[in-house]
């Protein structure tokens, strides 16, 4: 028997989303489990959240991660937007292929390779010019800027591509110089994509384990590194609690960003009839 089309559609989506969200929901539910055995339900409790607040090592790592994420997301947004502008607005020039390759590569590059390569660069730079002295917050930030800016560039570029170019021409036509056109017209119109790009860079940085492991030094342990070493030892209800905190925070941020992105279709190219 053939299922009606709408039912087939519903089934596909229901299974798909169940697969995507099931594990996350289980994780959240079991963060409220009283038992130390994560997978055996014994009663509702928020004690793991309390313990989380007293885990000095974890809090310290979280603070470091947040600092790195903030700085790297901000720098990545600036550089990534510049790269997007160059790729979308400057036409064909020598080096365009190279730039677009260097933007696309970090999106897919296995993290172990990026991490190793970055570390070797930092070591070589240190022996050659003495900077960066040692590894830690600075090197992790640089590494995160590098791969985050690729993501920012992709997001911003897609917004730029859908922007009506005649808006910029109109501003020039009315007497605004190119730099002014950018700040008064282009930037406000693509602003939602910058916000989205920044948030993306922020979470990518907050989430990165592999690259940070390579380029960090003694005394600079980020949150994912703490989580990883704890997870390696086995499942712990504290990690469930931490995961829930992260998931809720991210969900709130993303919903806000999504609202911003879809707020208005301002400045889109007119639909051709």
């Amino acid at each position: 028997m053939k299922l009606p089309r709408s039912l087939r559609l519903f089934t596909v989506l229901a299974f798909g989303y169940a697969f995507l969200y099931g594990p996350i929901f289980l994780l959240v539910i079991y963060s409220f489990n009283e038992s130390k055995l994560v997978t055996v339900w014994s009663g509702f409790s928020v004690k793991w959240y309390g313990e989380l607040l007293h885990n000095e090592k974890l809090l310290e790592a979280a603070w470091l991660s947040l600092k790195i994420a903030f700085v790297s997301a901000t720098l990545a947004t600036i550089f990534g937007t510049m790269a997007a502008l160059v790729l979308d607005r400057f036409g064909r020039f020598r080096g365009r292929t190279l730039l677009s390759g260097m933007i696309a590569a970090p999106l897919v590059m296995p993290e172990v390779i990026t991490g190793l390569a970055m570390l070797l660069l930092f070591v070589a730079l240190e022996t050659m010019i003495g900077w960066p002295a040692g590894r830690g917050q600075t090197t992790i930030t640089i590494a995160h800027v590098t791969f985050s800016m690729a993501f920012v560039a992709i997001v911003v570029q897609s917004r730029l591509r859908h922007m009506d170019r005649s808006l910029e021409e109109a501003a020039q036509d009315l007497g605004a110089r190119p730099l002014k056109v950018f700040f008064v017209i282009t930037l406000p119109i693509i602003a939602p994509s910058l916000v989205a790009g920044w948030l993306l860079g922020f979470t990518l940085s907050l989430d990165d384990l592999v690259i940070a492991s390579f380029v960090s030094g003694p005394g600079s342990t980020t949150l994912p590194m703490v989580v990883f070493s704890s997870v390696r030892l086995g499942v712990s209800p504290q990690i469930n609690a931490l995961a829930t905190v992260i998931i809720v925070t991210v969900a709130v941020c993303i919903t806000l960003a999504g609202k911003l992105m879809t707020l208005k279709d301002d400045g889109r190219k007119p639909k051709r009839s």
Partner: protein
Amino acid sequence: MLRPAERNAPSSPRFEPWTQPGNTPFIRVQGVSKAFGGEPAVTGANLDIYKGELFSLLGGSGCGKTTLLRLIAGFEVPDDGRILIDGIDMTGVPPYERPVNMVFQSYALFPHMSVERNIAFGLRQERMPRKEMNERVSQALDLLRLTPLSSRRPDQLSGGQRQRVALARALVKHPKVLLLDEPLAALDKKLRENTQFELVNIQERVGITFILVTHDQEEAMTMSTRIGIMNEGYIEQVGTPREIYEFPGTRFVADFIGAANMFGGVILRLDEQGAAIQAPDIETEVEVAHAGAGVAGMPVTVMVRPEKVRISKTAPKNQDTNRTEGTVVEIGYLGDMSIFHVRLDSGKVMQASQLNLHQDAEQKITWEDRVHLSWHPSNAVMLTL
């Protein structure tokens, strides 16, 4: 039907500055060429436009009309040639320093600014004192009946309102030339017709030179003082709507504007009175009052507009040139008139149109009827290109 409007633009009863030899053109396009990636868009364009004109660039898509407009605006740099506005060479002057403003096809209203701020945008760039600026903006709002909408955002406006905002935004700068890129294309038919007249009105009131790009010949005919017809990057002909329609210079123009019957032939005789032409499709000799240069034996094309062709069941009296016979194969009833497609004995199909003056015509012409077609020598044009 095309009814070329005789325009009585600024002041003088007949506004035809191009006929007075002492006048210097306001905008001069001299030998301008532009190619994109080896693909020529505009080739060797020469154009003189006078102050106060409403000049139309008319052509199909990809004919180069928009490129020429963008060259005048400064968005494109010509590969060759130069453009002068009010006697000043504009080569190398960026768009933001040209005394030229543009109404974009998409209107390009800044979505994050209110109507008022959109209109004030250009004046802000000039750092105009606030008092004067407000005055100018409110004048512009008034002129285009936008005052009640001044605090709205573009996405809260209808198509016609957006068009008026775009116009106000450009006019408020008091440009020497206003460029309009298909300004009416996004409007529906009824609104478009009303706006055509409104645009002409505004142009006459502000006295600014308008250059308008359009693919709509009716629009160009009704609004313009003169029209430049473009085809494949070349300007084919420049003239008043009447000149373009009645005396096309090339086969392309004849075909592009309105309907045309064209047939090939060879010149028999040629003098000041006109030419006599031997055309294989037409039984009799063809006399043409409006003939250009040529010599006997030269191959030419004769063009007659369908409404200039008389159609009758009986043979026309006292006429032994410019007539032929055929069979009606198709009738197009358009309400105010009918178009008859008549197959000549040579196999060629000619069109003749007739006004439907009476609700029921006494002498009805119908399918398969044998009819006579004739026209006056002064209603035919000889084309050599």
